[in-house]
């Protein structure tokens, strides 16, 4: 894939009277992993929704010039899976003809136990559903993936597994991961971005509770 850039210029968004952010500028290169950090409610999800075309910005613009016929996919904040269907069905729905069911099963096997692949998603645990959502976003044809807190609900081991899988499957694509976890940046080999203009206070710097 040819390298490309995602350029965000002066983007602003508000809900009624309440401004989310004003004059957001950001330039992101394909082939990199960006870790988007910022306090809850600062507008990470809103930015993703605008980039995915699900919401319109109030002002400013963004340009994404990927090779023709490929766009952005996402891991949403919620899993957004079709509950009555199996993990394979769910991934197949998103990837279309680009992968066979056998190939999908092979990929999902690396993140999930074999027996879970033919069960309806509604019977899976929260962590399993999350991994299906991650696999779906990575396996669908795209030139960039936006992940909104993708590793929530995963235990230490599966988190490690999922991060390894994300790094391997990212390829030359653009990857933006919204996270609250400092250690994700290092584990993903990512670049920290805090475009919302607010200084980020790492959790390690919060003052310890006074001993009584």
């Amino acid at each position, binding site marked *: 894939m040819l390298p490309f850039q995602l350029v965000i210029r002066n983007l602003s968004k508000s809900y009624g009277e309440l401004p989310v952010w004003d004059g957001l500028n950001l330039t992101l290169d394909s082939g990199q992993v960006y870790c988007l950090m910022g306090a809850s409610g600062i507008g990470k999800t809103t930015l993703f929704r605008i980039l995915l075309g*699900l919401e319109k910005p109030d002002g400013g613009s963004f340009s994404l010039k990927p090779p023709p016929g490929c766009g952005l996919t996402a891991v949403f904040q919620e899993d*957004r899976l079709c509950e*009555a*269907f199996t993990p394979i069905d769910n991934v197949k*729905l998103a990837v*279309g003809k680009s992968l066979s069911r056998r190939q999908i099963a092979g990929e999902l096997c690396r993140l999930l136990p074999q027996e879970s692949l033919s069960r309806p998603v509604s019977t899976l645990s929260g962590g399993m559903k999350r991994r299906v959502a991650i696999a779906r976003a990575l396996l669908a044809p795209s030139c960039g993936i936006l992940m909104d807190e993708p590793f929530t609900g995963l235990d230490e081991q599966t988190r490690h597994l999922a991060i390894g899988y994300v790094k391997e499957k990212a390829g030359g694509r653009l990857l933006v991961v919204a996270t609250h976890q400092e250690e994700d940046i290092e584990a993903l080999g990512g670049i920290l971005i805090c475009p919302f203009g607010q200084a980020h206070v790492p959790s390690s710097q919060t003052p310890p509770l006074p001993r009584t």
Partner: protein
Amino acid sequence: MSPSPRIRKIGILLFWLAVWQIAALLIDNSIVFVGPYPVLCAFRNLLPTPGFWLSVGSSFGKISLGFLAAFFCGLAAGSLAHRFALLREFLEPIIRLMKSVPVASFVILALIWIGSANLAVFISFLVVFPILYVNTIAGLENTDQKLLEMARVFSVSPAGRLRCIYLPALLPYLISGCRIALGMSWKSGVAAEVIGVPSHTIGENLYMAKIYLGTADLLAWTIVIILVSTLFEKLFLLLLVKGVRLCFRFSW
């Protein structure tokens, strides 16, 4: 120790049968109030006659035909009305009319228009169509918007959206709509037959029971209607759920 639910149910049923029997003995008039035993006898006398099976078959065929036609038409019209807001506004007065006009008025109109032979088909269609139409729209409106956004982001094909997002949202509404519609189609279909008296139908037999003051026959036929409509309801819902499940499993 309390008895198991099944034994309790049978006990309650026997209790009310006994109340029925005692009331019949006290009133002692087989026209005004008939006891359970004469009804059972009337039922037993009906079963071996070919006329009985012909009437049940004919009414069953007509009412189910009207129901099935209305099921598919209601589903199609509801889907289109959900998709095209203008069509929905256009259909609104017609649906209101179908829901509010008494069945008896429609029966008289239908007798003038199409005669009594296919009366039950027409009436069961008229009663079922608005129920299915309204439930289809409600189900589609209840579709998970978040899943639709997901489908947009991943460019999911229309067939995929239908199978994985719309159909699961629609199914509970279809089932509850059909439950109501199935009972209604039988009640109104038979009522129409009693008014129109088409030959070889359940309604005609009810009418005859009225003329000859055959209360036992009336109740026997009523039991037949309940049995046949319950059977049809169970069978249809089973087929509906199985059909949709098959659609879920079908790999593409």
